[in-house]
């Protein structure tokens, strides 16, 4: 290459060289600075073209006839009822805890037995060994929900619990290990209304023990509280310690110390309740039971939907049997529908769908939306199809029964799954 100073073409008369020869040649590449108007012309033209190309076209039905038939797509539907596809349903008991329930139920009726556990761990300091306990009372506020005759005399017994229990983990299987005194430490007997309150007097010796334990750090956990049970008068409901402070159970101790009467309130309270009873397995029904509880399983065979089809929407229809259903508590007319993600342990997908009643068909519930759609999409894509799990509304608190027609019920009443999907090209 040449040595010396080089530059690109500029406003001078220059000599051009080629990389493979030293022969010079006049390129005539003279820049005329006075020819700028052409720059403006180019710029304007480019801007004009830019403006004209900034328009977008809306899709037009013209030309749809040129799309080959093999590439035409559309929406189809799968209807388990119309297409007579196979389905299965069943019920199963679910061991649940009631530590977070805002309602506790106590009593025996219609084959159910409900018992509550309740305790207060802390008490104000300074009263452990001194003073005279004048009285100790547990006050419960009642709710209008009950099984049996609410006007019948109700006998509620409180027994000292002598073994450890945890409201968040205690289930019916733990009853056998729970220890309690045979003799009641307190009894209420009488009648009361729907929104009333009852006071259960508690043995002062028991309360003294709680006061002493409360003052010793190592003994705090030994305040196991009392078990409430009612052998007569049906099942009655009360607000639990998770309810509003105005109506939650209260333990009130009146103590005389140095001639002065003080009123102590139990603190750091904890409660739960548990219901036992036989699970109903009615033919052609899915009977969901709150309290105990009993859940339902529902499975649909979706092999009629081409694999990997895109599911646009899925709807599940459930028909209620009003004769077998009860409304002793709130009688909620809705079902929670979950995708089952495990067939052995009946594990729920974390989010469920509330069903709603079809306006034009009273007694028919529909569950739909993105969660149902996604569950069905997974099954269409041949990922594990464990079906749906049905849960009664207020399962944690209401001892109500919601009976739905099962997969072996008459065709027009059995569960129905309608899936809208798109064909593939």
């Amino acid at each position, binding site marked *: 290459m040449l040595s010396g100073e080089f530059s690109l073409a500029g406003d001078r008369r220059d000599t051009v060289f080629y990389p493979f020869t030293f022969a010079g*040649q006049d390129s005539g590449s003279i820049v005329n600075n006075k020819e700028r108007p052409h720059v403006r012309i180019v710029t304007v033209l480019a801007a004009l073209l830019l403006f004209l190309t900034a328009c977008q076209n809306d899709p037009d039905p013209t030309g749809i006839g040129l799309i080959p038939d093999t590439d035409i797509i559309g929406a189809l539907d799968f209807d388990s009822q119309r297409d007579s596809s196979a389905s299965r349903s069943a019920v199963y008991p679910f061991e649940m805890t009631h530590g977070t329930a805002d309602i506790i139920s106590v009593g025996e009726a219609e084959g159910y037995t409900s018992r509550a556990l309740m305790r207060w761990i802390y008490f104000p300091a300074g009263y452990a060994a001194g003073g005279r306990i004048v009285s100790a009372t547990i006050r419960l506020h009642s709710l209008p929900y009950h099984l049996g005759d609410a006007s019948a005399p109700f006998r509620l017994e409180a027994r000292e619990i002598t073994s450890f229990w945890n409201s968040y983990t205690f289930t019916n299987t733990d009853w056998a290990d729970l220890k309690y005194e045979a003799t009641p430490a307190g009894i209420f007997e009488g009648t009361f209304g729907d929104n009333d309150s009852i006071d259960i007097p508690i043995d002062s010796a028991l309360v003294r023990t709680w006061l002493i334990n409360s003052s010793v750090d190592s003994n705090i956990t030994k305040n196991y509280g009392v078990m409430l049970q009612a052998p007569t008068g049906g099942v009655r409901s009360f607000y639990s310690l998770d309810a509003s402070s105005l109506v939650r159970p209260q333990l009130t101790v009146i103590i005389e110390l140095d001639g002065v009467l003080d009123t102590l309130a139990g603190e750091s309270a904890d409660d739960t309740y548990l219901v036992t009873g036989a699970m109903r397995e009615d033919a052609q029904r899915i009977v969901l039971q709150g309290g105990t509880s009993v859940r339902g399983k529902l499975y649909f065979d979706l092999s009629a939907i081409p694999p990997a089809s895109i599911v646009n929407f899925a709807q599940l229809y459930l028909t209620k049997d009003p004769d077998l259903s009860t409304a002793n508590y709130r009688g909620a007319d809705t079902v929670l529908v979950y995708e089952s993600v495990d067939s052995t342990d009946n594990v729920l997908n974390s989010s469920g769908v509330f069903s709603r009643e079809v306006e034009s068909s009273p007694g028919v519930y529909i569950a739909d939306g993105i969660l149902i759609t996604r569950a069905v999409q997974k099954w269409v894509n041949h990922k594990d199809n464990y079906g749906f799990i049905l849960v009664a509304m207020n399962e944690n608190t209401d001892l109500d029964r919601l009976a739905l027609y099962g997969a072996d019920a008459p065709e027009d009443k059995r569960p129905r799954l309608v899936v809208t999907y798109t064909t593939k090209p």
Partner: protein
Amino acid sequence: MKKLIIAFLLLTSIAGAQNGGTVESRYGIGELDLMVTARQRGMGSTAAGLQSATDINTINPAAWSSIQELRLQGGMSLEYITISRSSDVAKSGAIKGFGFVFPLEESMKLRLGSAIMPVSRSDYATVSRGSINDEAYTISYEGAGGLSLFRAGLSAEPLPHVKIGAAYNYYFGNIDQNWELRFDNGSWFTSRQTRATSHNGSGFLLGLLYDGMKHLSIGASLQTAAQLNASRNLVLEYSTQDSTLTGASGKQDLPMAIDIGIAWEMTDELLIAADYRRQDWTEAIMFDGKQTGQGEAYKFAVGAEWYPYKNDLDARTLSRTAFRLGFYMQQPYLAFENYKATEYFITAGAGFPIFGNNRGDIALEYGSRSSDSPLLGTQNIMRASFSVTVGESWFIRKTE
């Protein structure tokens, strides 16, 4: 000048993002690009026999030897289509490539040329309506993409008046077909499916040009047949936020294309040119087999270029301004239900200096594409093309 180049490239890149073809481009590899410059379009898209010191010939690489300095060239076009079966129109803008020719050696007029250009375009959008269980929906069918090529080659004049050229073409590009089914209620999941086909492969472009006869040059070029690798994926999007991908492989034929052209310098100011191009798609394999509806494509073109003020030394700019006129008839390679379409275009254009040896060219085309098929109808097409060619003299020694 550099600012102008940058602005031009930015503007063309924006223009290239628009869509607006017709459903016919869904077939084959889409609508084939003429692959000619704005100057050539103005002359009825004649090219094979044309030589120029400023315009890079994109059809015949042998013509590169006529270029005397480094030439950079880029172009864009705007298209406006009205369809007889519809009240709507299709508008689009597209980059028409970028290339350069670089002189390497003068005694044999050895030139190095390279370019990136569009080869085809698949660009359409159409809709249909439907309903199921009283839920109405709209289905959109859209296509996007096309093939492009990267070219690199050489030209030379080994014998007086005999120019030859050869270039390697690398073809690449994706063609997507998209489906969308959307329910009017707005709450049901919208189905989206995409079939994407990617292509790549190689071919060659050979050119020959002879201008030994007085005022006459004859040119011919051969684009060799190429078999591209094609890979196709179908992607389905689900409400579960995952997707399914199924794939397949195949081949895509690009048949051989022949261009023959002649250019006659009738007077010092007037140049007449004519061209013939042919490419037979009848036996071309489209991914998994021969696609029905493909046939022989050919084009007849004539054009003229006139410098009315060429010898007027007092009119510096006008003396370098050219006016062009042309006509071409073309049969595209796609035929539906055995109905072949035919295109007729008249063209006009102008070329003018920007400054120094830099030039701009504008071409306007108006024509129609008609077919006896009731599905196709008649399309009236208007096109505007614009290109800029910039001359750079490298390795210049400053004068004292």
